């Protein structure tokens, strides 16, 4: 999910199957479970800790985890917005609490608040291969929009498979994004159709991965804490993320990251990331 101009009927919702390439890359499958006591939807997803998503130290990249987070959390928020509309993410705030992973992961999403204009979804990722230990805890906030051609129609309860496996060799996250560094502070990616969400704009999970790569490029550390504000849609590309380290403390370095859609000539996202020293992944 990613953001477009909220609060009005909008064009371009391409249907529920558009944007599935992103969940296919991280191999997320999900299904709707019993609603919460207040009747709001709950979703559970599963994804393997695939080799192509791992860092050299063996842990799964935080950006890949946040792609799973955005995927399941965004769909849960969207289901809560039905029948009035569908959603785009406006804020993703998450904390990584475990750096080493076994997998598979379970991603649980539930609604904390469903208002007329926005939804707030709590998302947890747990490592089923490591005694169900918590890996990521966070919240996804989304704006409710009204697609011009109406909200998507899903068969309920919703079940979505991971899609066909990608042909080997499956690209690394950087190669998947087509990301490359342009200087010591900047990472740039192209905006291919396989990275777009159903609104036709850069998928929020892909953007979270770009943020993760940029923080790693600037600090050399592992992303443990992300606040990502989706300010405007990335429609054209290339998409460029530029970070600067604000300061360091015992648990890592805090970096501020700006994202621009260079083709559209505007700032599209603002992120604040904390990165743990890379040796923490080896020395826990």
């Amino acid at each position, binding site marked *: 999910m990613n953001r477009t*101009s909220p609060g*009005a009927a909008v064009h371009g919702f391409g249907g529920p199957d558009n944007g599935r390439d992103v969940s296919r890359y991280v191999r997320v499958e999900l299904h709707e479970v019993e609603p919460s006591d207040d009747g709001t939807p709950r979703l559970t997803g599963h994804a393997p800790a695939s080799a192509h998503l791992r860092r050299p130290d063996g842990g799964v990249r935080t950006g890949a985890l946040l792609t799973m987070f955005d995927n399941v959390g965004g769909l849960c928020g969207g289901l809560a917005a039905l029948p009035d509309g569908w959603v785009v993410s406006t804020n993703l705030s998450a904390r990584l*609490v475990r750096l080493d992973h076994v997998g598979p992961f379970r991603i649980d999403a539930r609604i904390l608040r469903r208002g007329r204009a926005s939804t707030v979804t709590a998302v947890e990722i747990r490592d089923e291969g490591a005694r169900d230990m918590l890996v990521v805890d966070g919240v996804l*906030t989304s704006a409710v929009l009204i697609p011009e051609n109406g909200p998507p129609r899903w068969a309920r309860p919703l079940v979505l498979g991971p899609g066909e496996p990608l042909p080997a060799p499956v690209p690394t996250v950087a190669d998947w994004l087509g990301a490359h560094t342009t200087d010591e502070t900047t990472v740039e990616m192209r905006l291919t159709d396989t990275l777009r969400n159903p609104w036709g704009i850069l998928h929020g999970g892909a953007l979270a991965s770009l943020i993760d790569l940029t923080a790693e490029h600037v600090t050399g550390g592992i992303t443990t804490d992300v*606040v990502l504000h989706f300010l405007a849609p990335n429609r054209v590309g290339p998409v460029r993320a530029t970070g600067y380290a604000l300061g360091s403390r015992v648990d890592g370095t805090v970096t501020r990251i700006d994202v621009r859609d260079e083709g559209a000539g505007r700032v599209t996202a*603002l992120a604040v990331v904390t990165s743990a020293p890379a040796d923490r992944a080896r020395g826990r």
Partner: protein
Amino acid sequence: MRVDPAALARGAVLAVEVDGDEYVVWRGQRGELGSAPRSCPHLDHDLAEGFVVGDELVCPGHGWAFDGRGRVHKRNEYGRVDPKGRVPMLTFRQDGDGIDVAPYSQPLMSTTYPPDRHLLRDLRLTFEHDDREPANRTSRARMPVVAELYARDGTVRAGALATLVDVIGGGLAATVAQPNWIATADLTLHLVGAARTGFVEAHARVAHAGRTTVVIEVDLSDPTGRPIGIATMSFAVLPRRDDNPDISTAMTSGPSTMARAGSRLHASLLDELEIRVINDRRGELEAPVAEWSRNSLGAMQGGAVAIIVDAAAEAASTVAAGDNLIVTDLQLTYLALARVGPVRARADVLNAAGGAVTTRVELVDLGADGRLTSVARVVATPSLGSGG
């Protein structure tokens, strides 16, 4: 005037006369009562012939919709909602066999808000706003460092800094959103340096100003200009209500303050908020929703919420680490206003590694059936150095 409830089944519309004025009363599909003047303000169509959709009454003339609480809007064919202003309304009091109906008098917005003794005055904040166009506007604020703001290590606690952020960020967002009003959706704070003496300076700028959301970024620095931290806030843009404060004079350019001559903290922030520790290990605390910390809507001020979150996380993290820790990061999501109180916080330790403890803190309003009002993820670490 008294109305028979049998005349107001769900979806029913009833014309009434109250103190010589004509109104319509209806019951929405969820059972809520609504009211509006009988004549549509658009072209005087008779709303007694209107139809109920959800909780709204829709005019039979041109589809203007009345939300029952004084707000009017029109949905276009694509579903876009265009506000059409406000209309008078009624109040209802239902007992066993009838409904008392009376004209609604807007609660007088206190012209003295905040009251003489209030968090916003006693922090002695000073502000300076520039007069650029709203989307490019910036604000600066200074908070004097006093011992009452300290955490256990003698540095200004994260909750106090979050309050500074909330005040300056909220003020700037309200300016940008005018003539509409705002509701705070989230506040995040990441610290890289400590504030011990002098003052903390906050510099706020508009990161995004849209029709439905405003995002503000705030840089915090010490008197030498070294960074202390960075904060962000998101706000939902809402239709203005009559009881929203007029901030046009408070946000004029040039220096200003809400402090009065005798304004100061008389005790630590936690004591001023009357925070009572119930269980350190679980980070269980309680605090009343008191005049000193209410916002203009009568609910607990967002900064006060952050202070309680800070205190709960600090308590649980310190027990988990076996050492004094201070809060350095907050990711705080506001879900509902805490209007009644007392507010109860609870912190669950998620992880303790690498010198940091992560907790998840939840706040509920015990006086409102334990309603969940805020959730936060909080990081606590040993003491920070000065500046970033």
